C-alpha cells in the first residue's frame, strides 16, 4: 500500500467534515469580530466589540447563571436517579426486571422536542396532570402555573432535563456496576461490612471514572441544550429560564445582531471545548486503568 493511500481514503470524510464543521466554525469566528446584521449585512470590523457587548449585557449574565443552574440541577439529579435505578437493576431488587429496565430508558430515546411539548402540557396550570394530581392529593388548592412563574420555570425545565438524561446515566452506571468484581463484596461481607459501607467503600470508588464521564457529558449536553428550553418556555417568562443556546438565537434571529450572536456562540463553544478536553483526559485515564 502506498503511503498516500490512507490519506486518499480519508479525504472524502475529511472534506465533508471540513465543509460541515470547519467552515461554519471559521465563519462564525470571523462574524464574531464584525458588525454584522441580517438586515444591514456585513459591516466593519469591531475587534472584540461584540464580545464586550455580550459581557455588558445583563441578559448574558442572567443566562449564564441560569445555564449553570440548569446544568448542575439537570446533571446531579439525573445522576442520582440514574444511579438509584442502576443499583436496583443490578441487584434485581423488587419488581425491577429487564423489561422494566428497558422501559426506564424510553425517555432517552424520545425526541427532546416531543418531550418538551409533553412536559409543557403535563405542567399546564389548568389542564396539566401534575396539577390535577397535586389538587386531588390536597397538596395545593388550585393549579399552579409552573412554567408561567419566573421562580419555578427554570427548575421545571431542569426536571424535564433530568427525566430525559437519567436513563443514559442509568445505563452507564449499570455497565459500571457489572464490571465490579464480586470478590470485593464477598471479602467485605466476610469482614462484616454493612451494605451501606460496601456501597461507599466499594461501589462508589469503582464508579468514579463513569461518574466523571457522566458529569462532564451531562454538563456539556446541558450547556448545549436548546430544544427542551425553547419548546417549554422559549427562555421565558420574562427571561427567567433564558439559557445560553436560546440567547444565541435571541441575539441572532430576534435582535438580528449576528455579530453578537456569533460572539456568544464562540464563547459557549470555547467553554464546551475546554470541558471536552477534560472529558477526553478523564476517558484516557479511565482506559489506562
Amino acid at each position, binding site marked *: 500500500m502506498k503511503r498516500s493511500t490512507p490519506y486518499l481514503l480519508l479525504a472524502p470524510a475529511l472534506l465533508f467534515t471540513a465543509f460541515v464543521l470547519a467552515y461554519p466554525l471559521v465563519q462564525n469566528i470571523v462574524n464574531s469580530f464584525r458588525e454584522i446584521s*441580517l*438586515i*444591514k*449585512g456585513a459591516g466593519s470590523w469591531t475587534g472584540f466589540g461584540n464580545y464586550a457587548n455580550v459581557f455588558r449585557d445583563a441578559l448574558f449574565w442572567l443566562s449564564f447563571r441560569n445555564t449553570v443552574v440548569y446544568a448542575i440541577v439537570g446533571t446531579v439529579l439525573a445522576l442520582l436517579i440514574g444511579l438509584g435505578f442502576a443499583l436496583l437493576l443490578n441487584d434485581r431488587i423488587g419488581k425491577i426486571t429487564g423489561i422494566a429496565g428497558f422501559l426506564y430508558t424510553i425517555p432517552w430515546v424520545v425526541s427532546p422536542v416531543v418531550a418538551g411539548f409533553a412536559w*409543557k402540557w403535563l405542567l*399546564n*396550570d*389548568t*389542564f396539566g396532570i401534575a396539577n390535577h394530581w397535586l*389538587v386531588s392529593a390536597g397538596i395545593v*388548592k*388550585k*393549579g399552579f*402555573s409552573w*412554567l*408561567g*412563574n*419566573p421562580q419555578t*420555570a427554570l427548575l421545571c425545565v431542569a426536571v424535564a432535563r433530568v427525566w430525559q438524561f437519567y436513563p443514559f446515566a442509568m445505563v452507564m452506571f449499570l455497565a459500571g456496576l457489572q464490571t465490579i468484581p464480586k470478590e470485593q463484596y464477598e471479602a467485605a461481607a466476610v469482614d462484616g461490612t454493612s451494605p451501606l459501607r460496601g456501597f461507599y467503600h466499594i461501589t462508589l470508588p469503582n464508579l468514579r471514572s463513569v461518574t466523571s464521564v457522566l458529569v462532564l457529558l451531562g454538563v456539556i449536553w446541558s450547556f448545549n441544550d436548546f430544544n427542551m428550553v425553547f419548546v417549554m*418556555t*422559549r427562555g*421565558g*417568562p*420574562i*427571561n427567567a429560564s433564558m439559557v445560553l443556546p436560546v440567547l444565541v438565537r435571541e441575539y441572532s*434571529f*430576534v*435582535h*438580528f445582531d449576528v455579530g453578537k450572536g456569533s460572539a456568544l456562540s464562540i464563547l459557549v463553544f470555547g467553554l464546551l471545548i475546554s470541558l471536552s478536553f477534560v472529558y477526553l483526559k478523564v476517558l484516557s485515564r479511565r482506559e489506562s486503568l
Partner: protein
Amino acid sequence: MNRMRVFIFLFSLAALSCGRKDDAIEIQFWNFGGTPNFIEWVRNRVDMFNKTHPGVRVVISDKSWNMIREILYANYSAGTAPDIMTLHANEAADYGEAGFFYPINTFPDFEQVKKWYQPNLLESTRYKGNYYGLPGSAIAFVLVCNKDLFDAEGITPPKTWSEFREAARRLTKGTDGDGSIDQYGLVLLGGDKGGFAYRLAPFILKAGGRILSDDLKTVTFNSPRAVAALKLFTDMYQVDHSITPGFLAYTMSEIGDLFCSNKVAMSIEGPWFKVMVEEKSPGKEFYTVPVPVPDDMLDQYDTAPTLQDMVMYPINAHTKHPNEAWEFVKFLRNEEADMSWVQKNLGGIATTVHALNSPEAASRKDWLVYKNELAHALPWPPHPSINAIARNVITPYGEKAIVGELTPSVAMEQAAREAQAILEGRK
C-alpha cells in the same frame, strides 16, 4: 440492425425529453402560516392562476409563521429568498429599509390597483414613499367576550376601563364548589415574545396614547395614558387577581383551550380567533366588541383607534421576474379573490373596498365591528426597529410590571429609555 434499434431508442428518448421541457417562468411563493381553510384556499388560487397563465408557474411552499423572520432573513442573506411571500405589513419598514422588497408603486398599473383597497390599509404597506406589498387580510385588535359566561353572569360586554375591570372581577370565580378560583376574567398572551405588546398596544392607542411621535424620532409609549393602560392590567393581575396567573406561559393554543372550556371570559384577539374557536369548540358563541376606552373617553368608544395589523404580499426586490410576480400578486389579491374572505371563514378581514362594502360583508355581525375598527385603527409606527421595540422592549418590561417586578411607570420609563436608544442607533 442493432445499431438501428439503438438509434431509434435514443431518438425516442430525446424526443420525449424535448416534449417534457417546460419553458414556463417559475415563481416561488412562500406562504407563512394561515388557517387550514386559508391554506386550502390559497392553494386553489395558485392552481387557478397556473391554469389561466400558461407562461408562468407559481410554486407554493407552506412555511411556519412562528419562524417567519428567521426563515426570511436567513434566505435573503443566502440569496435564496422567494419571489413572493406573506409577511406582516409592520415589517414593510424593516425590509424596505434593507432593500429586500420591490417597490410595487413602480408598476405602471399600480395607481389603478391602488383603488381596490381601503386607503388606510394600503398605507400601512408604505415606507419612505414606496409601497412594498398588496394588502392580504387585515386585523383589528378587539375584545372577545365569552357569551356563555357573560350571559350566565347577566352582564354585557364592557365599554370603559371601569366596566372592563368590574366585568373581569365578577367573572373571576370558583365554579366547582372547592373554594378555589377556576374561572378568570381575562387571559393575556405572554408565552410568545411580542404577543403581549400586541395586547397592550390597543389599550394604549384607545386611551389616546401613541407608541412613537409622528416624526418617528421619539418614544411616546411612556405617556401618562400609556402608563395608565399598563396599570390597568397590573391592577387586574395583582389586586383583583382577575387575569389568569399562568398567562406568561400561554401561547395561542392555551388561550383557545381556556376560552373554549369556559375557564376565561375575555381575551384581546383578532379575526383568527373565530376560526380557532370553531375548530376547538364548534358552535361556541362569543361577543366581538371594541377594546374598552378610559372612562372619560366613552364618547370615543368606537372611534378611538385600536391596533391594526395586516398580512401583505411583497415581491422580492431581487426577483428575476417582477412582472410575472406582480401579475400573480394581483390575481391573489384582486377584488374577486378578496370576496373569498367575506364568503369563507379564512381568519382575516377583507381589505378591498368592494369586499368590505359588499352585502355579504354587511350580513356578518362580527365583521361590522372589525370593519368599523379598521376604519380608525393605527398600525405599528413605520420604523425599521419597531418590531425589535415591541418584542424585546415593550413585552418584557410590560410583563415585569404586571407580575410586580417593576411599577408600571418605572417599567415604561425604563422601556422608553431602551427604545429611545434603539431609535437613535445607540443600541
